[in-house]
């Protein structure tokens, strides 16, 4: 029984990390259809932002305050990645809408540049971010220990999901955003500034990648190429979940995270990964549009 609970917890933990790195992509790729290969580097930017905030706290704040650097690092990571995303959209992406291959190559190049930028500033070796003391240890239930860091990431994902849901589906800017993504021309005819909506939407997706990067500092050391580890997983989650729907991304992350844990438990780490990929390939053969497909009688185009 304990084993099952522990494996389930691990599954949810992995799912939460996958979801966090895929959430931003579900906006830039899912909603905007931009293949942004630099998404991983936006995650990396968020991670290094957390590192910088930590160092600033260590240098300038009293030691007793150090534990709270992480609470500040999350919004700052969002803001820094948001600004990078905004510059990227205004300087490059906006010329490449509707040209997936071009944007794939161009953003990949941007990703390489950002990696080199990180290497030049912070050096090639990985750097460690010391987690705040209040996230050390874990919650003991029966014989199992659930680390606070993992629980914190699960909570962070839930908060991000909730805020994103409220923004996209319940706010005025969110409504404008969905209108532009569905029918750009008509949205423009109604007086919506499609340029501004594009820029902010992309920047928000990038900002969420920044939060993901900030959370990844809790799991391990970070380096200039940290984003490349996660970019494939992120795209996989979004494609498996079904492009364009938030709830699809949630299912995608849960599906991959849980099956990954179970397969690894039943077999070995590498064979488990292979089995997960096989399942995804098989599933996409059966349902090419993913878990949650958009259906409507007027959506034939």
């Amino acid at each position, binding site marked *: 029984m304990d084993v099952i609970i522990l494996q389930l917890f691990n599954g949810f933990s992995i799912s939460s990390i996958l979801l966090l790195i895929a959430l931003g992509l579900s906006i830039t790729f899912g909603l905007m259809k931009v293949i942004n290969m630099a998404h991983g580097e936006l995650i990396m930017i968020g991670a290094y932002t957390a590192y910088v905030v930590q160092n600033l706290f260590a240098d300038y704040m009293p030691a007793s305050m150090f534990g709270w650097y992480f609470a500040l690092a999350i919004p700052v990571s969002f803001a820094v990645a948001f600004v990078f995303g905004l510059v990227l959209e205004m300087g490059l992406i906006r010329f490449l809408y509707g040209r997936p291959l071009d944007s794939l190559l161009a953003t990949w190049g941007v990703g390489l540049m950002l990696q080199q930028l990180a290497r030049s500033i912070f050096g090639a070796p990985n750097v460690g971010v010391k987690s705040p003391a209040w996230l050390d240890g874990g919650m003991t239930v029966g014989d199992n220990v659930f680390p606070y860091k993992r629980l914190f990431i699960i909570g962070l994902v839930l908060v991000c999901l909730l805020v994103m849901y409220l923004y996209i589906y319940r706010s005025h800017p969110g409504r404008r955003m*969905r209108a532009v993504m569905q029918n750009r021309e008509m949205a423009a*005819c109604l007086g*919506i500034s*499609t340029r501004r909506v594009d820029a902010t939407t992309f920047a928000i997706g990038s900002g969420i990648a920044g939060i993901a990067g900030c959370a990844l500092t809790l799991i391990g050391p970070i380096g200039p190429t940290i984003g490349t580890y996660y970019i494939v997983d992120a795209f996989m989650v979004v494609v498996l979940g079904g492009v364009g729907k938030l709830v699809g991304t949630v299912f995608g992350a849960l599906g991959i995270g849980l099956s990954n844990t179970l397969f690894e438990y039943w077999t070995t780490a590498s064979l488990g990964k292979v089995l997960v990929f096989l399942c995804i390939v098989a599933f996409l053969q059966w349902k090419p549009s993913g878990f949650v497909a958009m259906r409507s009688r*007027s959506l034939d185009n």
Partner: protein
Amino acid sequence: MLAVQQLEAGYGESVILRGVTLQVRPGQVVCLLGRNGVGKTTLMKSIMGVLKARKGTVSYKGDDLTRRAPGQRAKKGIGYVPQGREVFAQLTVFENVLLGLEASGSKTRVIPDAAIAKFPVLPAMYDRRGGDLSGGQQQQLAFARALASEPDLLLLDEPCEGIQPSIVDDIRDVIRAIKADGKTSILLAEQSLEFVKSVGDYFYILEKGAVAWEGGLADLNDEVIRQYLTV
């Protein structure tokens, strides 16, 4: 109010409009007639700004709009009901109508009663998705969305296309009601001669991308119809 001067527009290499000149005066219902492919929809798109004009000007209330984006034209008070309705399929009916308010610039976000009162079926369907409505319901939704911004000029592109007769009658009533209010002018592109005769004040007939004939209701006689409209 709306003045189009020697407008030329087209898609890619092909030129569709070859120097169209027309006017819409305040409170008038001006109808645009012509066989298929003479450029009615292209003209509507050029007036709204979806299509860029190659030559000529579009001016509205004395302002030159020729180089303005569609959104700015909407904010100037031009409402657009496009051909094919173009409702946002994934958004609810209510959200669709709310989006009509974007151009009005009001911060209150309240849908004017006048916009929705003419379509009593819509409030009952507020929570359904726009894409789930029937064609006729979508047409009414597109109307309500355009009226939400309380435009001074309404561009209607084939509002009766593929719509059941009872809703065509409803749309006719709506156009007449707008006309009776006298606050909003209408430019109506339509195939059905019977329909435009029942609502129009002034008529333009397009042929090969230019105005071939214009005149009032009394002048729109059988000979004109035979010459320009009979297939």
